[in-house]
């Protein structure tokens, strides 16, 4: 069975592990993580994904949220199954900087979009506003993008 190629950002992981997110987002996000584990999805992420997710967990713990070690262990489990794209090896700061200005997004957004473009993957995110903005701009060189709520 051929696996689909996806880039996910931190919002997808967060949507899956937060109990208070609506089911229309959390269930497809969890399905994505299950499919990454099983190999149905070949997940690519830039190295920044780790900083984002672990930074988010540290912030949640500091704010007194009941983060379990199982949530942290889940991140490590899935991280081992992802293909990591490293700065100055698989992507470089100059091309990301240029892309951010051209597409009028943040530097962070551009890292994911540039990696998705290189790999030929669909960029999955929980960020509806970003998707709406990019769809309106109609840039021809953008990778495929999708809202995680539509993942099946």
């Amino acid at each position, binding site marked *: 069975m051929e696996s689909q190629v996806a880039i996910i950002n*931190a*919002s997808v992981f*967060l*949507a*899956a*592990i*937060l*109990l*208070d*997110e609506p089911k229309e987002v*959390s269930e497809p996000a*969890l399905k994505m993580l*299950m499919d990454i*584990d*099983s190999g149905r999805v070949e997940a690519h992420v830039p190295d920044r994904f780790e900083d984002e997710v672990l930074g*988010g967990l540290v*912030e*949640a713990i500091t*704010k007194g*949220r*009941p*983060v*379990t*070690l*199982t*949530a*942290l*262990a*889940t991140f*490590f*489990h899935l991280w081992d199954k992802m293909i990591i794209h490293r700065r100055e090896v698989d992507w470089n700061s100059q091309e990301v900087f240029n892309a951010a200005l051209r597409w*009028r*997004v*943040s*530097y*962070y*957004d551009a890292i994911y979009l540039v990696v998705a473009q290189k790999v030929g993957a669909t960029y999955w995110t*929980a*960020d509806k*506003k*970003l998707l709406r903005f990019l769809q309106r701009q109609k840039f021809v060189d953008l990778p495929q993008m999708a809202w995680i709520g539509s993942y099946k």
Partner: protein
Amino acid sequence: MAKRKDLELATIHDELLRAKEEVAKMFEALRAGQISEEEFKRWWRIKVAFKGREALSELLKRREIARGWKAKLPS
């Protein structure tokens, strides 16, 4: 004081190892069909997920600010 901190870190380290084993076991059981998707989701809700009180929307707002959009950071 330092000894107590070392002890706490050692405990966290051991607990994290146990948690990693549990996570690997549950994903493996799901893949092998030993548990249903519903059982896996039930375990996920109890053992993995937590109440984040708008952690995701706060993250998305920070992203908007980084794009120069007119979003306000939560206080």
